[in-house]
């Protein structure tokens, strides 16, 4: 009898607690930045595409919902010719972000992707690529890679010595 009354009392007290319910969609939840939501492709600080089409995200994806094809511009900079994510298969595990060596692919705190037609959940590069660096600022993969691309020759990357003069005998 006592426990019954106690339970009712405690329930009654909850009427005066702070509200946890959010009036979504009028009111938006504030999600932590590490929330694993919609996937984007970001750009490096110079505005170039960060993705180098290395295929690691696709390999890491447990549901195999990422498909892409690598290509190169005339200066040797590699980028994806197409980049496709089938969000109707995606489980938002974030393995692709973990696998990405260039911080290109990122999961952002946005989950509002509902569609009436499943076909619309297939995102191409134009749907994925954003005009910013996303969560990770300041990283430019080509500035640390040894590959020469347009605007960066051999030996001009970070921690690189100038190209060897192979005709020199000086130690």
């Amino acid at each position, binding site marked *: 009898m006592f426990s019954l009354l106690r339970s009712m009392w405690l329930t009654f007290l909850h009427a005066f607690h702070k509200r946890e319910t959010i009036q979504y969609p009028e009111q938006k939840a504030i999600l932590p930045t590490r929330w694993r939501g919609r996937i984007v492709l970001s750009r490096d600080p110079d505005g170039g595409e960060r993705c180098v089409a*290395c*295929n690691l995200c696709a390999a890491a994806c447990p*549901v195999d919902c990422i498909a892409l094809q690598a290509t190169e511009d005339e200066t040797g900079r590699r980028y994806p010719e197409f980049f496709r994510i*089938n969000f109707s298969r995606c489980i938002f595990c974030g393995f692709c972000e973990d696998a990405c060596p260039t911080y290109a692919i990122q999961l952002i705190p946005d989950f509002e992707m509902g569609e009436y037609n*499943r076909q619309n959940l*297939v995102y191409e590069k134009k749907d994925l690529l954003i005009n910013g660096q996303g969560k990770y600022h300041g990283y430019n993969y080509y500035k640390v*890679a040894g*590959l020469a691309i347009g605007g960066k020759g051999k030996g001009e990357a970070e921690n690189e010595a100038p190209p060897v003069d*192979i005709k020199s005998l000086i*130690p």
Partner: protein
Amino acid sequence: MATIYIDDKPYEVPTGKNLLEAVLTLGKDLPYFCWHPAMGSIGACRQCAVKVYKDENDTKGKLFMSCMEQVRDGMRISIADMEAKEFRAHVIGWLMTNHPHDCAVCDEGGSCHLQDMTVMTGHNYRAYRFDKRTYINQYLGPFINHEMNRCIQCYRCVRYYKDYAGGKDLDVFAAHNHLYFGRHEDGVLESEFSGNLVEVCPTGVFTDKTLKQHYTRKWDLTMAPSVCHHCSLGCNISAGERYGTLRNITNRYNGEVNGYFLCDRGRFGYEHVNHVGRIRKPLVRAQLPEATDKLTALQAAAAAFRTGSVIGIGSPRASLESNFMLKTLVGDDNFHHGVSDTDHDLVGLALKILKEGAAPTPSMREVEQADAVFILGEDLINTAPMLALAVRQSVRKQPALEHISKANIPVWQDAAVRELMQNEMGPLFIATIQDTKLDEIATHTYNDSPDAIARLGFAVANFIHADFPEVQGLNEDELQLARQIADTLLAAKKPLVISGTHCGSERVLMATANIANALVAKEKEAGIVLTLPECNSMGLAKLGGHRLESAFEAILNGYADTVIILENDLYRRANAGIVTNFLKTAKNVIVIDHLHNATTEEADVLLAAGTFAEADGTLVNNEGRAQRFFQVYPTSEDLQESWRWLGELGTLLAHDRISHWHGFDDILQAMVKEQPELKGIEAVAPGTDFRIAGQKIPRAPHRFSGRTAMQADINVSEPKPPVDPDAPLSYTMEGYRGQPPSSIIPFFWAPGWNSAQATNKYQQEVGGHLKGGDPGLRLIKPDTSKTEPYTQTVPQKFQPLEGHLYMLPLHHIFGSEELSMHSPPIVERAPEPYVLLNEEDAIQMKLQVGENLSFTIEGQVYQVPVKISPHLRSGTAGLPAGLPGIPYAELPAWAILNRELKWKQQPQTTY
């Protein structure tokens, strides 16, 4: 056998090997870089360190490089020892100090030996904080991409390129920690075997430039075991596909045939599969639009078939199954070989020699063991490139065999053996119509007309065995050379004679047969290798059929009015005028092919055939080895294997036998039943219903990516995975994950070994045969009892003809083969049309290099720029065979010189 103790466990290993080979053969993992099974050890990378203990009481042990230690009985070693492990981790740490942060954009990534070894040793974090060394790259031609920053100085590339393949233009430059592996200046790598650098290099310094155009990681490729279609040797390849296009060709190890290597034509000649000129839909010319579906085309073909009397023309580049289907459909009497009459006779003769001769045909591995070689009339680098590489090894190994036993050096001690050998080379005699690239390693060369080569051959046979016909009228030099060759071949334990069809002379083949028989009569372990024009020339010859000429006669004389042409461009087989007349006269022309060409233009019904990557089939190579190739990726139903087209046509026509065959296995069974000569080909690869643990063998690696997104742009609902009705292989990654039987290995992969080096895990013994025996089955058994002379007729001396030139075919590795000439990088390496003249002839005709020579062969007028050679015999000339821009002529033939000067002044017309 010796017993060695690895981490206190006893193992039985063969003696004479080094420790690294022994450990890898036992299936253990030990990292290495500079050692390669085909090239031996030099101990340069210090990566394969193990602890070696004096005896069981020794607890301290010493670090040794396992690749430099001979296996000894009772040896005690440790791989897992902490000090050895740390040493290996440190070595890789040092190797990586300058390695760039490139894996994401490196083409080697995912099949990289350096990645595998780094993971194996556990070197995870970079300890070196200073700047990385960089290099300027070089342009190395259309095949190979150079990225020198990635180099770890293992020296494998130069050891392969210079020492193994005999290249001259790749070397190591500079000094100390600035070593540079490249050419002395930017330029095309000259070697015909440069593509192997891609697989020899343990990291991404040398990568496949053609793959770069449509880059795909190894784990994303759908791969199938295949056989190279670009020459008669039948090297084993692995073809990889992604998104419906063929991406690359990699070596598929076969201990008997190609071993670890491929030639550049085989590796980079695959782009015809992706060519814009592909026939992707059947065409019926009588209707608009011409492109139609499968059923309409089949009905059109069947209608033509019912009304007319039909002949069939087979092809040496189509599979045995396709040719057999055509033969069955049109009947034995109406089946013609789609080859020139010269080739028909030569291949028939070659088959006869191999069957009736006393000497067996050695495999390419056995060619490497030969200790005296005589080549008659074949420019091997251009006609059978991998055989040239094998001959090079035989020449290199022969002196070593003799010296090593005296010097007490193990065979695998590459640097020491090389030091001991210096420039000493084994006996090799080359008699060809002009100089070849192998001449540099030859003991003696001889350049003359095919008849003179044959006469030299007959003289050699006579010197070997007196029962063989004598040659009259040889000059002193020739006699001396013949005697020298005969003595050398007799002194050898395993002498080998090599010839083939490419100089177009039956007499050269007969001379070769005589030498081989003479050697066997002298109880030598002699071998004979005959190269053939195309990948399935031998299969077609074994199948039997009439000449192409009789097909022309049948149509032109009205015995038949309908013709089915199987995967064949007749304009490459006979004179253009005759072929045009033939195709115009025939009422109905049905063509089955995969590329548009001059013949398909004339087709009334054109059926879209699958290339080697889109078809299953069997090829028989020059040694009579039947080998199966498998479809790499599924196609739309409008494009299918030639044999399937013919089977469906037969079913539609209610053919009494064909309509009872359902699928590939039935065709194989029927073929074996009807062609006893081909018995055994049903056992070349496991049948369609073969399963391991109830599962098929997957064509894709287990890490294949993008399955639910690849086709999502077309339809988000994934289609059912395609089913392969003809092979025990699945198109997806599902299936048995262990090692399949050797004939159906789609790719080499083992846990921790993602690169091509995983081959080690599939071999009985490292560098030896594949587990379960090498794939392929020999169909020809020589008759060792027949040691009498093959022929008694010796040809007469070659006599030049006034106003004529004896035009001989010259073959080019890049240019002479039809399909590879659809690959842009191969086209880039192909020569421009030319005619080769003797130096004196050119002076006499007042012709300079580059000036046009005008001549006529069988009514076909030619006007081509002149090249001059001092080696070609006066009175003969050379014309590139099969080169686009040079109309077909059946060579060798007499060319009539066009003396009218006005011809010389006119600009060259393009054909």
